[in-house]
Every structure is written in C-alpha cells, then in structure tokens.
C-alpha cells in the first residue's frame, strides 16, 4: 500500500468495475477523496471491468477474483474452505487483503450492499463500516441471501440510505437503531464518454415515437396510486395555448393503466392533444424515455424515480415541480421559479412556456447541472462520507 501512512485508511468496496452510472460516480468519488488528502484511499473490487484501470491509477486497488492462486497462503485458504472451515478461510483471506490490521480512524465503505462479502474478511470490532443504500424500489431486498442480509445488519456501523424509503425500511423492517442510520444525498455524476454512447438508441426511440428532430420534449413521469396523472392534460392544454408560434413541443407521459390512465388517454384524444403526447405505460422501462426529455415536469406529490430524475438533472435537464415534491429543493437550485405552489398548474404552465420560449432552457440547464454537481457531486458526497467516518470513529469529537 502507498500513501501517507499517518492518515486514516478508507477502503472503498464495490462489486465490479463495469461501466455503469453508479461505478462512474464511484470513480469520481475516489478521485475526489484522493485529491482531498484527508484519508488514505484503497479500493477493493470483487471483480474487474472496463473502469478498473482508471481506478487503479487513482488508488491502490485489489480485485478479489484476480488474487493470485498458487502462493502458499492461497492454497491454505482454499484448503480451509474445502474443509468447510469457513471462518479460518476468511481469516486467511483477510490477511492476504491486509484486512487484519486496522488503526484508529480507519474505515471501510461499501458503495453498494452487494459488497457485503467484504464484511466476512473483516475483524469483528474494527474498523468502522459504512454502507450506502442506493434508492431502489425495495431497499435491502436486492438479490441478497438471508445470510448476507444478516451479515450486513450485524456488521455495518452506519447505514447511509440515500432516500427516506431506505431509512424507513431499515428502521421498521429491520429494527436498525436510528443512531446507525444517516441519510445522505445520492452521489450523481453526469454521463460521459466512459459510458456506452446511446445516441443511436435515443434517435431510434425518438423516431419510433414520431418525435421530430427539432421538437422539444417535455416529460411528465410518475403514475402511482397516490399521484394525479390526470393533471397532465390540464397542464398540456394550458401550455399548448401559451407556446410561441412555430415552437414544436412533444410531451412524454408515463402512465399507469388504471381508470385514471383510461380517462387521461380519453381526455387527450378528446381535446386534440393526443397527437403531440406520447403515453408510455408503466410496464416500459423509464430510462430510455427520460433520456429523450429536454425538461421534466413532475406533477406528483412524491418523486417515484428520484435517481432517474437526478441523472437527468445532472445532464442539464431542468426539473419543474410543485413545492410538495421531494425534488423541489433541487429544482429550486436550478431556478426558484421552477417550483410552483401546490396545484398551481397555471404557474407551472407559465414557467414552462418561459423556459421553452425565450431561450432560457440552455441557461437553466447549465444552472441545473451546476446545482446537481454542488449538492450531489463527488466533493459533496465525499465530504459527507468523511464527516460520518470521523463522527463514527470518534476522531471528530
């Protein structure tokens, strides 16, 4: 291991170095932590992938699946596992990874709960373990075996859920003490060249939907039972009348096939708005449609896909919503006018029209991107992470 040995050690654990949004964000987090110089960063990956080299250039990196297999220690470890002496096997593995000796202030950070295996290589008491819980439909109901779940609940000192749902799941379903839970803002990084270029797919989808290349796409997503998808038709109707002549605007509306969905479709047809509205049933995956949007208008009480919306915002897509929506604070960072009083559809229509009409979209998009970087970027996330580490290990007190 390299680096200033006097600094506390922070081992960042991730499952694999595949080129995904989550892993790209992790790379930027590592870069930011290394640049900050407050900790000695190491990375443990369960498997490699296209981003491995970049991670290795930033910090000492170990890929578990590529540990050498013929040394004496490796053979002994395998023998232990074959003899079902698992505890002894993990102890050997721990020693090989340098996970057997920890100093004060050292910590392990699991970027995803799928890094749970690393917990078996750690001593029982030290170091401090933190685990991010990504926003998911069912937090902690990932494809985890019961044993892995138990290990997480037993060994993690601080869970870092990125949303209220994760916090609630931990508290109510898993009886985790509130002191062990610290909700933090999600880590978001804008898509770049490291991820597969999706331009062709985007253009194909646009073409399939019949959206002209020069048309602006306004997306409205979120259609669960507590939502009000039928407000969309009122908004579209007011917007269509306010638009400057010659401005082509298409609407994407993601809907649930309930009675409300039936009537929304009927209303769109009856009011002549259907020709420029693309109704996407909820069974479709939301991601590709989000990528088409130039503006997002959330008419729901809650954000059903905050991670997806955040990624959009990180790309410079302004978000408009009611003040009740959990993304209102973020939307307001882009521009305070993007947040309307609850149910004030006319205000939203006016603001949407301003954005579309006077060329403010590019400027507001930049502001949105900067705001996401400030609040959800690697520096912000890394700073918060280190605060939790210091608080947890007593170094900050």
């Amino acid at each position, binding site marked *: 291991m390299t680096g200033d040995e006097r600094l506390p050690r922070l081992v960042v654990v991730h499952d694999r170095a595949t080129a995904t949004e989550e892993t790209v964000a992790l790379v930027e987090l590592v870069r930011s932590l290394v640049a900050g110089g407050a900790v000695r960063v190491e990375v443990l990956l369960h498997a490699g992938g296209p981003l491995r080299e970049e991670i290795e250039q930033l910090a000492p990196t170990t890929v578990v699946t590529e540990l050498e297999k013929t040394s004496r220690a490796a053979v002994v470890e395998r023998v232990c596992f074959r003899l079902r002496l698992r505890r002894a096997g993990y102890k050997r593995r721990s020693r090989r990874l340098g996970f057997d000796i920890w100093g004060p202030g050292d910590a392990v950070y699991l970027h995803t709960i799928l890094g749970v295996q690393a917990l078996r290589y750690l001593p029982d008491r030290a170091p401090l373990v933190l685990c991010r819980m990504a926003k998911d439909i069912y937090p902690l109901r990932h494809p985890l075996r019961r044993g892995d779940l138990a290990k997480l609940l037993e060994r993690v000192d601080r869970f870092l859920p990125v949303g209220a749902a994760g916090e609630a799941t931990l508290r109510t379903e898993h009886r985790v003490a509130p002191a062990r839970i610290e909700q933090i803002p999600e880590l978001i990084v804008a898509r770049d060249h490291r991820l597969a270029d999706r331009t062709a797919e985007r253009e194909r989808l646009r073409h399939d939907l019949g959206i002209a290349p020069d048309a602006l796409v306004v997306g409205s997503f979120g259609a669960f039972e507590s939502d009000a998808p039928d407000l969309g038709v*009122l908004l579209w*109707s007011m917007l269509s*009348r306010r638009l400057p002549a010659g401005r082509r605007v298409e609407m994407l509306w993601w809907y649930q096939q309930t009675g409300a969905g039936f009537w929304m479709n009927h209303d769109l047809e009856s009011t002549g708005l259907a020709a420029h509205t693309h109704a996407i049933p909820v069974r479709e995956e939301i991601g590709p449609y989000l990528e088409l949007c130039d503006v997002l208008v959330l008419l729901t*009480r809650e954000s059903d896909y905050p991670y997806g919306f955040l990624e959009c915002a990180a790309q410079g897509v302004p978000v408009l919503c009611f003040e009740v929506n959990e993304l209102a604070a973020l939307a307001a960072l882009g521009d305070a006018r993007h947040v309307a009083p609850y149910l004030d559809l006319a205000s939203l229509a006016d603001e949407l029209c301003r954005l579309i009409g006077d060329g403010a979209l590019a400027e507001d998009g930049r502001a949105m991107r900067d705001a996401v970087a400030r609040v959800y970027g690697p520096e912000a996330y890394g700073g918060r992470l280190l605060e939790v580490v210091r608080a947890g290990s007593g170094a900050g007190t």
Partner: protein
Amino acid sequence: MSGGRASPRLVVVARDASPTQENRALLAVVRSLVAIGDAEVTVVLQKGGALVDEMASITATVVAADLSRWAPAAVFERLIGRMGFRALAGRVRGHRLGLGRLGRGDAVYLHTVMVVQALRYLPRAVPVLCRVPESVYPLRQPLSSTDVRLLVDRVTRFLTVTSAGVDDLVAVHGVAPERVVRMREAVVAPVAGDRPAEGPALRTRLGFGDEAVVVGIFGDAAVEIHPPCLPLAVAIRRHPDSDAVVLLLVVPEHTAGPWARHDIEYAGLADRVAIVELVGSPPAYLDVCDVVVHAWWGADQPLAYLEAAAAGIPLVCSEGHELAELVGDDEGGYVCPRLDLPAMAAGVVALAAQPVERREKGAVAAARAAARYAPTDAAGRLWQQVLEVRVCMPS
C-alpha cells in the same frame, strides 16, 4: 311482431324508482314511448321507490322485488335454482316478470348495465338494447367479469351516453363498432314543489355563509383519485376578486379519500372548499349551488351538469365540450378556452359578482337543456333504435 299480437312489446328494465332526476327523466321517456303508440310498453324494475305509482299510472309496471315469494311459480323457481338448474330457473323468473313470451319482433331496453341480470331471463331471440350511462368506468362498474361478458355477448346494441363508453366497448371489450351507438341523454328540470327546498339547511350544514357564492363541481367519470378541480380552486383563490367564492366538491364516495383531503389541506384550500361524498341524488347539492363549473374534460354528457343546467344554474366549461352547447356564446354561462384554469376562474368570479346576470344566464341554460335533452326526443331516438335492431335480428 310475435305470436300474432297487434303491437310489438318493448320492455324497459331499470334498477328502481327512487326519486332521482335520472329516474324522472326515464319516466318522461316511458310516457313518450307510450304516446308514440307503436309498441306495448311495459316496465320492469328491480326495486321499487317513490316513483313506482307514477310509472304504473303510465304503463304496466312490475317490481321484481315485490313479486310474491310464495306463489307456486316462485317456490318452483327457488327449488330448481337450488338443484342447480340455473338456466331453467332463469326462464321461470322470466315468465314471472313477463319476459318469457317475448319474441323476435319485440325488444328489451336495459336502462343501465346494472340490470344485466335480466339478460338471464330472456329468450335468445329477443333483441336487447342497453344504455351505458356515464360512470366511473364505463362497463367497469361494480359488475363481475361474468356479467360484463354476458352483456358483451348478449346485447344487440349498446346505447352509450359518452364517447368514452364507445371507446371502452370497442377498444377494451372488442364489441363491433356497428353494435355501439352514442346516444343523447334525456334530462328533465326539477319540478317546483316536488320536494322541500333543501338549500338553506344544506348551506348551513356545509358551513357556507349567507354571502358566499357557491360554485359546484360534481365528480363525474373523470374524477379519479385526485379531483382535478382542486387546481381550479387554486386558480380561483389567486383571482383578486374571489373572496366570496366557495367551492362545493361533490364526488363519488371512493374519491373523497384521504388524498383529496390531504390536497385540500396542503394547498391551503380548507376555508374555500367543502368536499362531500355523493350519497343520494345530486339535486340536493344543486340546491345550494349558484354556479357550476366543469374543470376538466372527462365524460361528454356529465349528468349532474346537464341536470344543473336544467335546474337553471349557469355553467362555466371548456370550448369544444358538449356542455358548451348549453352555454352558446356565453349566454348560458361562460365558455373558456379549453381547460384554461385562469380563464375558468375569471368566468366563475364574473358570475359570482353579478346575481342578475347569473339568473339570466341560468334561464338560458335551462331552456337549452330542455330543448337539447328533451325526453320526447330521447324516446323518439330510442324507438328508432328499437326498429333498427328488430330489423337486424336474424329470422
């Protein structure tokens, strides 16, 4: 014609004879059908109600719920029903209701899909017309899937009140378009002295002051989980001259749930909006309304609004909606640009400020509703459909 009778028979089947405006309109339609004189009209009601005697004074009326339980035929019907011979029991029930001897030249008209049960008592040869009223879900009313299937299989022609009903039948249930006809509703004005004026007491109960101008919004088929009329309430509150305006939301029972109440509280509308669940007939609530506003699209013949117009209450609605026909060039209220909430709010506030204008516009709306939705015309249209389906039935 069947069995050598001089006139064909037309059997009108309805749920009950409770004193709603919808049933009063049916009464008027039946009266007109009898007056046309081309058919022997009989009425079968599942249950009775205050209008039974009036119906019976017009034509032969059978109330299924009042049939003797101990007549030999009734006992026989129950016996074979218990033995599992449901089809046979249905035929016996059909005879008891006077439906058994119907033939190809006769016809049955179901006034609502909710009387689907009658189809089980009918001979196969008789053509059936079925009105599909405005509802939360056309054909998705509280009917079992078996009943929906029976309707789709057995009804010769659906007479749907809304274009959404046509969409539902054709696109969702696969009914051939030629079996679906969109029909204009029959609406009657409330008769003065027909029932005690409930307005003042109801106003007090709802907490509306004497000075308040009450704007009614009636949940029709489009009002699902979230009444879209609340954004209108927000737009009205934003209007500088709207202090006297209060909104009365009358919504179907299941929509007045916690989310609707949450939204009213959250949007700060608690002092402006009263929300009540629809129990009983709308006119009781119409009595307290000075104006009604249709703030969304939804069904194109929303019955509560047609009844409001018939009762002389001015309307605010969107251009292009069927209700706009009653308003005309702002004579019966205000027609606003399509679903434009600030424009609707301005229309409501303008009507609220002018009681004389309100009355004048209300009178125009009433006259137009009486002309457009006259039961005599509705009876003529229905009879035309009867003639068509009788011709269409295979011999």
